[in-house]
């Protein structure tokens, strides 16, 4: 058979054409350009809802903590001292806890080169208190004195832990007064990616919903300069896509790897899988306005029906622990002595019978965009059905779920599943107050529960936490026992933060006090 006749066979021709096409496609594969010097590439799901540091109250904290600085940083759990100086180098409080004095850092400047002064601090805190998304954290703040350019005195109406509050992720950044003026005149001032910070990085470019590029600020006060002068961040909502980007080398680090992928990363010797405590906590609110859920016995029965071990394993994929009340482990005022429900279905059935409940159907809603909830909510349904309670499950977007729950409580869901975290590292002021303290109009208390004894304890503890933290802890602990007995909610699990870190890099440890943040100034190549 001649060469020509061999290739004139249709079968051979088809194979030859297909192979040539594949080779042609693969030949497009040009080698990656050498990585531009000093660029650290990141993939994250952190969206930017606003660039306004005063209004910021969401996932943009990922970037903000690199661009802006508060007076103090709170160190991760177990690190001593508890606080690290940021724009304030020293601080003290009066004996009654109502006056706090902060001494500002000499040489600290905003990104336009102007000095960080006490006037800037005063303007920032006043602006935050007045219009900030997290302005409520400054509730105790009455007046601010600026006796000199480098001294700020905070006068409070009641004792409050100003060191803790001044180190909050939200509402505590010190902002260039020129930016505060600019945004007062034009509310969209920041939205193209302008900044008025003093942090180690400044925004170099921003493509809404796609990418953020941060550049190192050359005049930052820190003596150690960042190892990477440019941080190039791709905003990637899908965790699997982010994972593919990291494993294929397109980015150096991805922060939103799905928990379901952790097993494969553990087997990969290029990466370390590190588990930390996080402030994230899963809670379910019972609708206490509606019979028979207005009966604590019924709520207790439903709490006893759950297989917590299974829910924790499936939801947290091995990176979670059963919750004690609504305060996540590692965050004040967590109390390891707070009682927990354990599965006891016979007792649950007895409680239902003693409450005279028959043919109960529970409507459960959860946030469909939360994959953990999508995994464990069916287990709640199964658990209820095991004690003879029917359940209808509805996964909808969180915004819809929340809007429906607030709009018409009497006709809303029976059980609302939520992932919650405190605004700053005090789950007494936030979680215990926001989730279960009575309110005239529902906002985050979506069990619509009212209990005067509980409210009294929480109110007293909140006021005490500034002057006597131990006494406040006792009150919070008592309040958490009420939550256990009355069961206005299901206390499901505390989620761990799991970081997949390429061994090629040294990346600062996760800090529970800044749950959405990554501190890029500390990133460097592993030695």
């Amino acid at each position, binding site marked *: 058979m001649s060469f020509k006749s061999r290739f004139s066979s249709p079968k051979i021709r088809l194979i030859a054409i297909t192979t040539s096409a594949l080779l042609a496609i693969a030949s497009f594969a040009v080698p*990656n*350009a050498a990585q531009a010097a000093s660029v650290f590439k990141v993939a994250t799901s952190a969206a930017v809802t*606003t660039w306004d540091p005063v209004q910021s109250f969401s996932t943009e904290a990922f970037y903000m903590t690199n661009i802006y600085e508060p007076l103090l940083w709170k160190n991760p759990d177990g690190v001593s001292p508890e606080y690290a100086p940021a724009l304030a180098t020293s601080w003290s409080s009066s004996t009654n806890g109502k006056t706090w004095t902060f001494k500002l850092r000499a040489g600290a400047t905003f990104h336009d080169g102007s000095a960080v002064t006490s006037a800037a601090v005063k303007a920032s805190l006043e602006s935050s208190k007045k219009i900030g998304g997290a302005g409520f954290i400054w509730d105790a703040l009455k007046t601010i004195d600026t006796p000199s350019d480098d001294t700020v005195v905070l006068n409070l109406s009641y004792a409050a832990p100003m060191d803790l509050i001044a180190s909050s992720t939200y509402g505590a950044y010190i902002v260039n007064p020129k930016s505060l003026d600019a945004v007062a005149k034009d509310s*969209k001032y920041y939205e193209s990616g302008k900044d008025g910070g003093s942090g180690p990085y400044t925004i170099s470019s921003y493509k*809404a*919903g796609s990418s953020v590029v941060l550049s190192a600020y050359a005049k930052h006060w820190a003596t150690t300069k960042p190892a990477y002068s440019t941080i190039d961040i791709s905003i990637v909502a*899908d965790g699997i896509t982010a994972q593919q*980007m990291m494993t*294929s080398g397109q980015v150096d680090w991805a922060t939103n790897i799905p928990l379901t992928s952790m097993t494969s990363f553990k087997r990969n010797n290029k990466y370390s899988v590190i588990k930390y405590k996080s402030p994230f906590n899963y809670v379910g609110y019972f609708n206490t306005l509606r019979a028979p859920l207005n009966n604590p016995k019924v709520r207790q029965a439903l709490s006893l029906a759950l297989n917590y071990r299974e829910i924790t394993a499936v939801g947290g994929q091995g990176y979670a622990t059963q919750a004690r009340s609504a305060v996540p482990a590692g965050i004040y005022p967590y109390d390891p002595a707070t009682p927990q429900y354990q599965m006891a279905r016979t007792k649950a059935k007895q409680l239902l019978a003693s409450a005279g409940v028959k043919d109960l159907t529970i409507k459960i809603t959860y946030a469909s965009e939360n994959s953990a909830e999508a995994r464990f909510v069916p287990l709640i349904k199964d658990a209820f059905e095991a004690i003879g309670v029917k359940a209808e499950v509805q996964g909808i977007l969180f915004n819809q779920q929340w809007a429906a729950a607030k709009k018409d409580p009497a006709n809303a869901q029976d059980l609302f599943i939520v992932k919650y975290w405190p605004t700053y590292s005090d789950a007494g002021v936030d979680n215990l107050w926001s989730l279960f303290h009575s309110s005239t109009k529902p906002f985050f208390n979506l069990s619509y529960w009212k209990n005067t004894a509980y409210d009294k304890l929480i109110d007293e503890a909140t006021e005490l936490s500034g002057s006597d933290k131990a006494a406040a802890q006792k009150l919070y602990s008592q309040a958490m026992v009420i939550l256990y007995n009355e069961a206005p909610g299901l206390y499901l699990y505390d989620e761990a933060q799991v970081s997949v870190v390429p061994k090629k890099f040294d990346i600062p440890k996760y800090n529970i006090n800044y749950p959405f943040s990554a501190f890029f100034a500390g990133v460097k190549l592993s030695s």
Partner: protein
Amino acid sequence: MKILRNRLSSALLVLFGASFITFTLARVIPSDPSLAYIGPKATAAEAAKLRITLGLDQPIPVQYVKYLAQTFQGNWGYSLSTKQPILQEIRDRLPATLELIFFAMSFALIFGVALGVYAAKYRGKFQDSLIRILAIAGVSMPAFWLGLLLQMLFAGRLTWFPATGQFDIELKYDHPITKVTGFPLFDSMITGNYHATFNGLHHMILPALTLSAYSFGLLSRMARANLLEVMSQDYVKVARAYGLSERLIFFKLALRNALPPIVTVTGLSAAYLITGTFFVEQVYNWPGIGSFAVNALLSIDYPAIMGITLVAAIGYLLTNFIVDLIQSKIDPRVWMK
């Protein structure tokens, strides 16, 4: 002229209908768009204040009339999640999507028609079976699934292609593209930045293949079936009886007559690709309007949803119009109908 006028008025009616349905649906679903604007931890008072600022406190018909008036003036509103003007968002992202659609459609048209013709020529043989299997797989496999499979195999395991993005991230530092038309791949070509061109083509292959799969399957099946039908017509038998060569009969007589339905399907496929990009861009993190649309839907960003709906509707109408024009060239009776 009359035909054109009729086409234009029906197009306006379609646009009006699409905008009205989307606008109403976006507002009757239980959600609070103001929360998308200020974030989930905003206070009730802040959310209420913003609802007034955004005009969400007014009745839906009033909101719709205002929306229409503003849209005609070129003000499509601001995205609730990105805070950028919708028109600017679309203008920034549309070129990336159109480039992706262009490559996907080219893949589908060239390989789909060519392999369909090839399969018809070798009907019942091994090649025919193989092409039919490929076509069925292309039509039946969901784009997001195919995308993930291709990504895992060619980017994750074989590392032949990049997993995501339109260009390597480094490109903007070492070979930045000069903006001329706004179409990045095209701009890189006309400015002689061939490093960027090849890099862009390298990034284009997996998403374009994924997006083209459905159209490829459809076109190859259609080309094969039409050709086989035409080949069984009497005039083909007469041509054979006259002793014309098979090549002449196949390519000159049969293929030309099999073309009109293929053109129709090509048009429909191109229109399908507009919404097909929603999944593909999400999987490949492609910076086009598809990924913007998915994010808008997930955050109930209703001004963005409205803008994307209008663009998609205009895309459909334009594609159909172009298909009609081409059809009328092939068969003038189509236009008259």
